[in-house]
């Protein structure tokens, strides 16, 4: 047989599974956005976090950090790093549960 007839095997056979996970996540994200549900979820989460004072706590952390470091030396990345650990940990359980419930029912209803 001539060499040119044989097609070489596709090179990225090993990379397929990670790519699949990524693309499922992306599919979910796309569906969320297209249906408008992502925006609703964001608004809901924002509202709950404001109500329970979470947002004020995060702003206080930022203010304290800015005061310490000097108002003009602060970057957005700094602040994100400052708030993220505490922010993720201090979301009230009820808020998290409510959002998770809504996300799950969305996933179910979109047969994802």
């Amino acid at each position: 047989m001539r060499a040119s007839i044989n097609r070489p095997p596709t090179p990225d056979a090993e990379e397929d599974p990670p790519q699949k996970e990524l693309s499922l996540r992306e599919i979910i994200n796309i569906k969320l956005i297209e249906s408008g549900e992502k925006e609703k979820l964001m608004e809901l989460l924002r509202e709950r976090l404001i109500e329970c004072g979470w947002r004020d706590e995060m702003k206080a952390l930022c203010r304290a950090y800015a005061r310490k470091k000097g108002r003009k030396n602060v970057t957005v990345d700094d602040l994100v790093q400052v708030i993220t650990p505490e922010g993720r940990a201090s979301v009230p359980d009820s808020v998290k549960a409510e959002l998770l419930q809504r996300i799950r029912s969305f996933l179910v209803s979109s047969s994802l």
Partner: protein
Amino acid sequence: MSSPRSQQASDCFDDLLDCIIADVASECHRIARLGLDRNLEEEEEELRRSVQARVADQSSGGEANGKNVVDIFGQTHPAIASEIFECMNCGRPIVAGRFAPHLEKCMGKGRKARAKATRSSTIARNRHSRGSPVSVYAPYSSATSTHRVPNGTVGGVGEEYADHAFEEP
């Protein structure tokens, strides 16, 4: 409940939360950099305290002070308004801060002013005598006559107007 779905939901939630964290960070960054938050620096805070002290004085009793107060744009105003404009009654250039006393004399609360005014306004009134109320006058503030000259008056009556209450036939 299937575990992958819970995991996906949790990932979604984290994603949402990260967005909101980024929003808060961005807003706080803006506030910090623009100096919108009062207590961020000691020096600035002292500066703001002194400005605020003045503003507070103004809001509580600033009318009495009059001078050296700061308005919301940070401007100060002299106690007596100094702009000059033209009196719409006599046409003279008047300093704004002295307009009220001028207007009293100009439009007449005293005898002299009233005598002078009635002469000029009588002429005007005669023109309007048949139907419309006089538009030249503002109502007098004296005790005897507080109403406008009614319709149908003829000239000459105005000269007695000042001295007694006007009676309608």
